[in-house]
């Protein structure tokens, strides 16, 4: 299942609708990295609220997305990680180092607005 990427002002929002296959994740990665420059976006929010399992591939892909987008000149925020998923990830050592996280979409947008304000 393809992940829709929505443009909201200077932010791109990708919302996972269900658990994704590895191919979907790869597609999402390419889509985001291309579109972030195409739309001159300043940040990307990836919403994983619907994911109740996060395996190592998904976790690594999320980190790669964040780092690639950083190299393309924008920020990434991962939002909506479930409490159980968060602890399972940490136990597996998948801590998304260097990637910003927020409770949900609203928090993610608030975080980015703060950040935009200070950088302007």
């Amino acid at each position, binding site marked *: 299942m393809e992940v829709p990427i929505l443009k909201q002002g200077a932010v791109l929002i990708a919302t996972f609708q269900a658990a994704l296959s590895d191919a979907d994740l790869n597609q999402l990665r390419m889509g985001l990295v291309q579109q972030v420059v195409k739309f001159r976006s300043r940040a990307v929010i990836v919403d994983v609220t619907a994911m109740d399992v996060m395996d190592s591939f998904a976790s690594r892909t999320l980190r790669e997305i964040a780092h690639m987008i950083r190299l393309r000149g924008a920020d990434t925020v991962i939002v909506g990680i479930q409490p159980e998923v968060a*602890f399972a990830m*940490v136990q597996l050592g998948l801590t998304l180092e260097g990637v910003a*996280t927020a*409770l949900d979409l609203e928090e993610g947008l608030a975080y980015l607005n703060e950040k935009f304000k200070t950088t302007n």
Partner: protein
Amino acid sequence: MAKRNETSRETMTLNNQAPELARSEAPSELLRELVAHLRQNRTQLREEWVVRISETRLLTAMTKEEIFAEATSIYDSYVEALETEAFEALQAYARNLSERIIPRGVETHEVVGIVLLLRDVLARSLFAKYQNDFKKLNRILDAYEPAANRIANTVAVGFVQERERVIRQQQEAIRELSTPVLQVRERLLILPIIGVIDPQRARQLTEQLLRGIRTNRAKVVVIDITGVAAMDVTVANHLVQTVEASRLLGATVIVTGLSPEIAQTLVTIGVDLGKMNTVGDLQGGIEQAERVLGYKVATLAEPEPR
């Protein structure tokens, strides 16, 4: 004494080859005879038993008088259980006894030990009584041994069950005492931890905290571990993992009140200090959390008159 015991056992095995002979007399009749014998020699056997108990240094937590009093009632219940073959009363008594002696630090091996001693003392008296009639002795032992073993079993199981019940009760008490997640300001949670943290409690704490972060939409959490004297490596690792998991939910964790021992543990496991935000005491932690959240606490110029 031991020699005699062995000889009788040998004879017993020999005679076991003719089990029909052994069962020719009704076991209940034999038991009745046995019980009568035990009743008759109650004072002497009980005395001997108490001496054996103190010789083997069992029940050191109790005084001589207490041991004697307990020995008397155990002896009577024992004989009664042999007589009626009903173990409920004995079971109840064992539970009652355990309830009284567990808080005094009596160990499982002591309880099992005294019951086995009683079994031996009684068996010896049977050997002495029937030493001239091995066939009879065998039949008596055939009746006595299963019942005696069952009694020993009942008492031991009763004691262990009581012990387990106490442990369960205490665990529940600890769980209920377990830590609340408190909101002290908008988006600021406090998690004061007191007492010993075992892996189970640590897991429970983490679950509560992560859920609390979600429901209260917290941005900052202060975990205060002033009341925790020490933690082992597993739990320290768990704490670090909790901090990281909280970050994945978008919350910053400030840990306060680390004791020197816990600091040592954390350094030993090589915790990444970039991830752990620590402040000396709870007050400092709350102040820093307020700074992060943009609160400013100021004293009023004039304190309000009381």
